């Protein structure tokens, strides 16, 4: 059995190729230093078009379980087409975050769907900053906007973003501390947690 498994094997709603995505994942796993002995599953929900993005990166039964909305890999200019540079970034972020979870520093981190939006976006900033240093395509300002939306449009949040983007080593407790610092300076009332978009989570929530 291959180390990387992509679901579905055949896409019917979008012009994506599971073999090509598996190949990209293998390549990026090597580039990001993902452990050789850990299996990786990549599940893509092809029913979700842009702008309905979403992704999770967890470790389940010792393997990296990456879930992506199809929108995360979609070319915004050509409906249903695969955007390789964007897909590379998304896969690399997922792999780095799953690798973080394999280490002791993130042992206490909740699974992705239970993370607060602030924590989730802070962690993704750190991951995308590392992807940038690997020489991959990244979207720094977009990431800053996402971060500000859930950690505040404040100078404190902007300074936190810079620290996260350029950090080499962090632990879950560091992410928590940075988000607490942002929250303390955020004048907004507490935001409601972002709702789920994944089919299985919605089904579970509806009972």
């Amino acid at each position: 059995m291959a180390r990387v498994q992509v679901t579905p094997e055949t896409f019917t709603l979008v012009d994506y190729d599971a073999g090509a995505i598996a190949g990209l994942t293998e390549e990026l796993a090597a580039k990001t230093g993902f452990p050789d002995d850990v299996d990786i599953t990549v599940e893509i929900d092809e029913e979700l078009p842009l702008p309905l993005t979403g992704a999770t990166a967890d470790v389940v039964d010792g393997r990296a379980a990456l879930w992506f909305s199809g929108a995360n890999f979609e070319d915004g200019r050509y409906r249903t087409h695969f955007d390789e540079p964007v897909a590379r970034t998304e896969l690399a972020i997922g792999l780095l975050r799953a690798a973080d979870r394999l280490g002791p520093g993130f042992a206490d981190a909740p699974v992705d769907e239970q993370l607060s939006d602030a924590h989730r976006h802070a962690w993704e900033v750190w991951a995308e900053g590392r992807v940038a240093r690997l020489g991959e395509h990244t979207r720094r300002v977009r990431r800053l906007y996402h971060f500000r939306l859930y950690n505040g449009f404040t100078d404190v949040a902007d300074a936190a973003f810079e620290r996260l983007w350029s950090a080499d080593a962090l632990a879950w407790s560091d992410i928590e501390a940075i988000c607490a610092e942002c929250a303390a300076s955020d004048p907004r009332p507490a935001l409601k947690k972002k709702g789920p978009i994944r089919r299985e989570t919605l089904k579970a929530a509806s009972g």
Partner: protein
Amino acid sequence: MKKILPVEELARDSRFVRARIEDAISDPRQAKVSERNTGSARLEPARPAAADRARQLMHGIFVGEIQALEGAGRTTFDFDDDEIPFQLKLDMARQCWDESRHCEISVKLSEHMGSEIGEFTEATFLYEAACAPDALLRLTGVNRALEGLAIDVFNTMKEFGDVSGDPVLAACEDWMLADEVTHVKMGSDWLRRLTENDPERRERALEFQRTVDKLFSLGGFRGETDENPIQLARKFREMAGFSTEEIDDLSEVATEAQEEARAAADALHGVASGD
């Protein structure tokens, strides 16, 4: 210079990719998404994918501003002085200045949100629906329907800026909203003046507006319930010269558009699944 410029001849550089509205409607993923109950469709940070939804909407506003500029600009040129009063052309010229400023603001807001020009497609139905060859229909299409939609969209984005604590977005949208109210008010005033002694012509223009407004409701994109991402901005429409009855009528048109889109999607989904 050519009069009544067809949509195919609008000038765009290579960054812009056009999308047909039919492609979005016939995309089988739309029916799949509508089966998922992800809660209120209102644009707020707690909505799934809120940031990317807002970025895409902002890009849509940007290309809409280009088309509004083109619509108002064409009106200053497409009609001779015996067809429309010169003062109306001056109003349209002033509107062009506003729209070009809105284009620049929208580009900067898109950059603020991390988007690039051309990151998303451009649908040109605004220009197509608004640029009627009849001057009065043009006025209702551009200044009442298109600019009216702009009021609703800007108010929605301003509220998103307020609730997300984004001072840049909230302030810019508020400024542009003020301009749009003026543009719609100009349309409302000119419609009344040009049809003062011709109630039948006014009725035809309003019927045309009703048709365009249904199109611009985009199958439930705009309305007054939690299912509609863009909310009808009643207060600002009243300031722009819409009567309560006209806004109620628009609300009904939006509901009809939503029901028709739902029926079409069900039919399409039924065909696709072999039911």
